[in-house]
């Protein structure tokens, strides 16, 4: 059924959220108290954008599309031989991302209607959120690195605006600044990579770059390695990986739906998307792939250890996000781009669900404490407990998401995360096989930790006895429909989202394989990834069907499923017997737990080796160079001119006699010269 495919209103996917931003922005300025316009416009434009993306998806599904469709709207930067168009690119990868962004974005917009309803900055909030969706769509649909960079920077800006949404709180404003500044380091890498691309290929649009790269760059060459490493530096900033992950946990200062949309489901996956988009370049640079997968694996484990001991419900989820992003980078780093994108998608479902669920919890807790004028921390899990009696719907949805992220069959995470872990093992061939084996073990260990910390979160929040307080307990209540319906939709997606891509090995299993699906994501993305796959297959070799310790895909999938289930059951049993004290009665963790509680002291170390030296150098430049040297020269010039003028001014007495005397003296002198 091959027929020509024409994109439907591709530009509108980006334009609609922009219109929403303008409309809500005007409302925020003119009538900030009006709630009707943002309520309709904010989620409405994103929903419409999702519908348009869906139409394109339906059209593209029936068509055979091997080359991306590029729609150029105007010439943006004609500079010498370089001409960059403001162009969008529609292909299987960008469309999948656009669907996730607008779809999950729409649900989170709807949730926000309930969550932010009593906030004074309601219209402002929706204008930022719409602007974010606009930039994110530009990022994923952009047809060249510069257009992508516009979106890249734009989402960073929106992230900053929304983290510091309650900017009157100093701590929250600082968190916004931290996110922005840390991301600048990554953006530097992205810019350098773009310049390297331009100087070597003379073009920056995806089609030309990916077509020319295999011929222009030798396999494993220095240029392409440096270039991809710089690109990856950008990815570590945006996708919150070591060493630049530190901004993401602090980003939880923003409203919870923002954490769900930007800091879990969409923006932070931009780095993964960028690596997948540049798959040809990364495939040409094996060292970069080792680095990408290595950073991902190490981050996955490292962040998971921190998540074990945090008490702030959003902090646990934040470190969980960092850890899961690590998984995605293992996927794209080992060359299993489709697996990385697949996990990106399922993670968007269940992590958005977890964050929105925690938002519902915080919403209830906040109302309870607000009603009794208590100043307890509404986000501290030690103050929760037993909430399943008060928030039964949220409880069920959160458990679905927990099982999904822990990798329990048949929930989404089982298929996506285990596939990544499996791919790390299966692609352990060629000269770097041992690296991948280590990453595989790290990923397995992190998966166990994931199951533990998520169970801990659920037990501390929803089970056991309630620790909120006698007075406050009466005020706890389930979230309104506008909040729990999006949760229900996301819960549904968290269940079935993984069925899109059931590996053949699992389909062959007796009970687990009944799911009516195939490796759909792989097939769908295949036209976009075939070039990279070929490069890897030629130079590294085909993937094996044997894990390093023996056993095939199905065996390891079953084993990790069994392990995840065992960890959940064991930790649930253990944690339910532990008594948890409310936050104000609790002592600081001691020993190794204290190290984890303080996040391995990374913030303190960065403060010591980066922030303080920068401050010292800045202070030196300020006090010595600027105030001392530069201001000294400028002020000195001014002062000497003044002094010279003062001397001259003293001759001007204003007394007629003095001037007359000077004139006479002059005449006498001239006369003297003439005569003698």
């Amino acid at each position, binding site marked *: 059924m091959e027929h020509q495919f024409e994109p439907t209103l591709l530009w509108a996917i980006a334009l609609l959220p922009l219109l929403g931003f303008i409309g809500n922005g005007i409302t925020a300025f003119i009538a900030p108290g009006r709630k009707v316009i943002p309520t309709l416009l904010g989620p409405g434009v994103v929903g419409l954008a999702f519908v348009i993306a869906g139409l394109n998806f339906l059209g593209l599904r029936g068509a055979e599309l091997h080359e991306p469709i590029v729609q150029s709207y105007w010439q943006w930067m004609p500079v010498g031989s370089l001409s960059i168009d403001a162009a969008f690119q529609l292909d299987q990868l960008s469309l999948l991302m656009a669907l996730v962004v607008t779809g999950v974005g729409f649900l989170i917009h709807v949730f926000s209607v309930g969550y932010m309803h009593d906030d004074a900055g309601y219209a402002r909030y929706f204008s930022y959120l719409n602007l974010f969706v606009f930039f994110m769509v530009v990022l994923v649909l952009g047809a060249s690195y510069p257009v992508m960079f516009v979106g890249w920077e734009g989402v960073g800006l929106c992230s900053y605006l929304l983290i510091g949404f309650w900017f009157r709180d100093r701590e929250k404003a600082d968190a916004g600044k931290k996110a922005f500044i840390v991301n600048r380091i990554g953006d530097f890498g992205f810019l350098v990579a773009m310049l390297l691309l331009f100087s070597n290929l003379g073009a920056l649009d995806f089609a030309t770059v990916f077509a020319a790269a295999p011929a222009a760059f030798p396999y494993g060459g220095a240029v392409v390695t440096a270039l991809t490493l710089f690109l990856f530096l950008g990815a570590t900033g945006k996708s919150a990986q070591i060493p630049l992950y530190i901004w993401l946990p602090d980003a939880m200062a923003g409203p919870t739906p923002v954490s769900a949309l930007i800091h879990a489901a969409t923006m932070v996956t931009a780095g993964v998307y960028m690596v997948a988009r540049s798959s040809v370049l990364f495939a040409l640079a094996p060292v970069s792939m080792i680095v990408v997968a290595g950073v991902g694996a190490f981050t996955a484990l490292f962040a998971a250890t921190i998540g074990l001991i945090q008490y702030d419900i959003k902090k646990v989820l934040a470190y969980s996000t960092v850890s899961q992003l690590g998984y995605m980078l293992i996927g794209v780093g080992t060359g299993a781009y489709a697996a990385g994108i697949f996990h990106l998608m399922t993670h968007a479902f269940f992590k958005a669900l977890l964050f929105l669920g925690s938002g519902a919890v915080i919403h209830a807790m906040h109302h309870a404490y607000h009603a009794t004028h208590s100043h307890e921390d509404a986000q501290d899990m030690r103050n929760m407990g037993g909430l399943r009696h008060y928030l039964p719907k949220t409880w069920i949805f959160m458990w679905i998401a927990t099982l999904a992220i822990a990798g329990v069959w048949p929930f989404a995470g089982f298929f996506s995360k285990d596939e990544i872990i499996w791919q790390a093992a299966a692609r352990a061939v060629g000269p770097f096989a041992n690296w991948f084996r280590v990453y595989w073990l790290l990923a397995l260990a992190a998966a166990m930790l994931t199951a533990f910390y998520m169970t801990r979160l659920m037990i501390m929040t929803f089970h056991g006895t309630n620790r909120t307080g006698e007075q406050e307990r009466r005020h706890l209540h389930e979230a309104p429909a506008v909040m729990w319906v999006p949760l229900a939709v996301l819960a549904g997606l968290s269940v079935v989202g993984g069925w899109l891509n059931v590996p053949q090995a699992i389909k062959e299993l007796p009970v687990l394989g009944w799911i009516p699906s195939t490796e759909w994501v792989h097939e769908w993305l295949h036209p976009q990834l075939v070039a990279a796959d070929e490069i890897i297959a030629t130079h590294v070799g085909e993937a094996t069907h044997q894990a390093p310790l023996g056993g095939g895909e199905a065996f390891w999938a079953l084993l990790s499923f069994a392990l995840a289930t065992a960890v959940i059951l064991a930790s649930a049993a253990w944690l339910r017997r532990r008594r948890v004290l409310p936050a104000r009665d609790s002592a600081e963790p001691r020993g190794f737990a204290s190290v984890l509680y303080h996040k391995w002291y990374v913030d303190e170390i960065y403060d010591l080796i980066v922030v303080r030296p920068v401050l010292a150098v800045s202070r030196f430049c300020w006090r010595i160079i600027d105030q001392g040297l530069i201001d000294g020269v400028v002020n000195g010039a001014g002062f000497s001119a003044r002094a010279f003028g003062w001397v001259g*001014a003293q001759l*001007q*007495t*204003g*007394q*007629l*006699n003095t001037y*007359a005397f000077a004139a*006479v003296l002059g005449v006498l002198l001239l006369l003297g010269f003439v005569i003698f």
Partner: protein
Amino acid sequence: MNTLPQLDPARLSLGLAALLFAIGVAGVLFRRNAIVLFMCIELMLNAVNLAFVALSRSIDISGQVFVFFVMTVAAAEAAVGLALVIAIFRHAETVDMKHFTLLRW
């Protein structure tokens, strides 16, 4: 036979002119009353006139013609100058030039 130098009228006139001019200059330099300053300026102009006239005998008549011009200018200058002095006096109740230093920096 004359031990005294010849009292040549021209030389006497030039000497007188120089003396008058010097008195005028000294007045301009050391006096501060505006009227006196004027008188001293007139004195200098007239000293120049005297020199013109004295020299015109030995050179040609144009010196004497020039004197008329100088007198005309001096008359105009005196008219304008005295009017200024009166205006200044009305403004500041004094004609002492030490009080008028407004035009310095």
